[in-house]
């Protein structure tokens, strides 16, 4: 394995971009220390690291959003200093944001040209922008009508529009910040193809991702960051995903998924039959057993989230639901929580936690009734509950007075889990439990999920990450366009079988 950046950097062509000794200090905290890396034309250079390793800060420095405290950036050997993102763009460095930053009410063409509209005299030249937008998307290997309103597009389509918008700027280096975080395997594959095409044009690509198999697939070189320091830059060919994980975490991550002994068949706690969520799910039926972890796989838009939201009373729905032998019908979350069914939303920041409130308020929000003494909330007991939750769920925070929005994604998920477990639910439905969470925290969350099942609770995991479903579930149900189309368990729990069911086509033919 080649390790030092110097040895890697021995190719003949001069690097397109060279960063040396970059450091960044916020206040007294040094978030980046002495980072050096190079990007050559026509390569994909992946940056990996746990949350808080400094990847985003590094990317923001390279894209002109932050100034480095120390260190130097050279383009074609000439030192540059960016006054802002626009300045970086003028030097040909563009950034594709992780989040979709499009105006939902404008059309595809209007979004792509937003802020740099083409004009004919005093009026905007819609015709030219329309054809320009159509071409830009075709260049990326897709087709979207440029007159479509963005709010009608799927997440993957929006991302394509966003990439088209960014690539409209003359560019030599494109930075992708976790572009596949909310994509299904198929959409990811399509995106990787787009990136390969960009690379083929001689553009340098910086690629940030948590998904190591995907990094292995796309990257030519991999740079690992840990705690704001450079661990090393390697040729991707020399690393397996397991090596990457070990370098990121700094220890062996031998097993990501906890050991689970095959649960004996126990009594059903939840039986669902002929359940409809109008517009999203039809005629769903399944049984959840005590102590079981049941997975829900499917493409985004297959109706998994909506089915769960319908079950717990967040959406209008009808059908037969039997809980512990008694028919139930939940019209709001209050009633489902009371019955012992908790749902953790996939949208942690938007639906799970109050980001501008502190940890204590978030922890007890769903279970305030337990903290009432007389007319008042007992803040002392709340504080004790927070101490316990921090301990039990290993929520890593310097101070307890921090706001929920300041926690890392992994710790936010732990807090959300702790919040729902305050109610001691019998059934826990977790939607995308590890989305955007680094590998160390992932491992912990899997352990928590397994432990909850061990305690005799029944768990439903909705996830778009098939390895995680296969790794932790006893059985997996697959949904396609609103229907449960199949169940896999035992040796049939493979990505191929799931993809086949999820797409309705033979997986071999698609890949």
């Amino acid at each position, binding site marked *: 394995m080649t390790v030092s950046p110097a040895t890697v950097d021995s190719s003949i062509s001069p690097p397109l971009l060279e960063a040396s000794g970059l450091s960044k200090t916020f206040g007294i905290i040094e978030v980046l220390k002495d980072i050096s890396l190079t990007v050559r034309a026509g390569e994909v250079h992946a940056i990996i690291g746990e949350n808080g390793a400094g990847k985003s800060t590094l990317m*923001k420095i390279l894209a002109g959003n932050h100034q480095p405290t120390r260190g130097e950036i050279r383009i074609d050997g000439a030192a540059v200093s960016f006054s802002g993102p626009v300045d970086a763009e003028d030097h040909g460095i563009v950034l594709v*944001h992780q989040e979709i930053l499009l105006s939902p009410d404008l059309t595809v063409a209007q979004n792509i040209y937003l802020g740099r509209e083409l004009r004919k005299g005093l009026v905007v030249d819609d015709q030219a922008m329309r054809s320009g937008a159509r071409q830009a998307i075709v260049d990326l290997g897709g087709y979207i009508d440029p007159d479509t309103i963005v709010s009608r597009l799927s997440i993957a389509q929006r991302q394509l529009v966003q990439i088209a918008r960014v690539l409209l700027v003359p560019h030599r280096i494109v930075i992708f910040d976790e572009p596949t975080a909310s994509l299904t395997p198929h959409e990811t594959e399509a995106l990787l193809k787009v990136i390969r095409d960009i690379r083929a044009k001689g553009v340098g690509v910086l690629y940030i991702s948590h998904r190591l198999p995907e990094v292995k697939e796309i990257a030519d070189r991999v740079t690992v960051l840990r705690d704001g320091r450079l661990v090393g830059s390697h040729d991707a060919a020399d690393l397996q995903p397991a090596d990457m994980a070990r370098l990121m975490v700094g220890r062996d991550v031998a097993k990501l998924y906890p050991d689970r002994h095959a649960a004996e068949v126990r009594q059903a706690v939840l039986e669902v039959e002929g359940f409809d969520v109008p517009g999203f799910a039809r005629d769903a039926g399944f049984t959840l057993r005590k102590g079981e972890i049941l997975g829900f796989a499917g493409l985004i838009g297959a109706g998994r989230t909506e089915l769960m939201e319908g079950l717990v009373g967040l959406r209008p729905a009808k059908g037969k639901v039997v809980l512990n032998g008694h028919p139930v019908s939940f019209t*709001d979350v209050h009633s489902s929580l009371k019955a012992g069914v908790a749902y953790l939303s996939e949208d942690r920041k938007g*639906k799970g936690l*109050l980001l501008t409130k502190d940890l204590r308020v978030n922890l007890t929000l*769903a279970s305030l009734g337990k903290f*009432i003494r007389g007319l008042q*909330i007992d803040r002392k007991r709340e504080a004790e509950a927070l101490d316990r939750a921090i301990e039990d769920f290993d929520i890593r925070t310097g101070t307890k007075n*921090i706001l929920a929005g*300041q926690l890392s994604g992994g710790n936010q998920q732990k807090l959300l889990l702790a919040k729902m477990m305050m109610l001691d639910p019998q059934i826990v439905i977790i939607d995308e439990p590890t989305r955007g969470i680094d590998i160390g925290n992932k491992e912990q969350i899997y352990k928590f999920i397994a432990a909850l099942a061990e305690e005799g609770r029944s768990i439903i995991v909705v996830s778009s990450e098939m390895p995680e479903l296969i790794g932790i579930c006893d059985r997996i149900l697959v949904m396609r366009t609103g229907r449960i189309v199949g169940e896999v368990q035992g040796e049939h729990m493979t990505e191929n079988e799931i993809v086949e069911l999820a797409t309705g086509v033979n997986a071999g033919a698609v890949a």
Partner: protein
Amino acid sequence: MSAATTDTARVPKTSRDWDMAAIAPFVALALLLVLGYFANPNFVSIANLTNVITRSAFIAIIALGATYVISSGGLDLSVGAMVAFVASLMILFMNTGAIGDPMLMLVAAMLVALGLGAACGLANGLITTVGKIEPFIATLGTMGIYRGLTTWLSQGGSITVRDRELQQLYRPVYFGDIFGIPIPIIVIFATAALAAFVLYRTRYGRHLIAVGSNEEVARYSGISVQKVRTIAYVVQGLCVAVAVIIYVPRLGSTSATTGILWELQAITAVVVGGTALRGGVGRIWGTVCGAFILEIVGNIMLLSNFVSEYLIGAIQGAIIIIAMLVQRSLMRK
């Protein structure tokens, strides 16, 4: 800027920054008192100050209710008209002479006012929550309705308490004092203390802030968003009723123009007090402070000679903008 930056930009770095924003209105009030002293030494006399604070009572009490509505993510433009409407009906009730004993009559009239206020608030709440109409539009509508009904009841003129004895009995509620403290001031602080207790210490208060902070998170946590919001409007209606109860004895009458633009003054007091207009943060004592600031600025202008008192509206307008700028800069840190 990726997810992380946009988030941290919106989220203050520590909870201490919020405290700075909470202290700011009180610092402003202290500065005003100093300024007032230099403008006219008589300004800081006990007599003048109790006078000023007494006059701020109506706006302060209404603004306490507005703090609830705004914290929950709502808005109520109808409060000024509601004052006129509830006051008119209250006086009309007293004028029916349905109850012979004046004391009983007075108590009954107060209860009628509270009931009417709660009903008006409930109407606002249900229209916005169950009817799902934007609070701005919904309460713009009820503002017209309450004001129009008042004009109709008074036939464009005024409605006066006819019974002399009743009027005499009622007068001390505005003009009286307990141990030298004017009753309206006691009412302000008592109402504020109750409002603060409910907002900061009870489950309902916590739910209100959660709903205003992020409606979806509240819903996914099993909180009934509609119920919490509706109750906030009822609280607003009750606060309007309390304001009416101390307003009516002041003149013993009300007219079609009573309470005009009070809704804007109440919102100003809330915002100057540090409550975020987008919801999720409620500052009861800040609101009281904001109401005092508005009244004191007017008083200083009257007592001093360097600015015409006709400019009061302009100065109050400037205050709201300055308050927002100060808050913004405090939160950025």
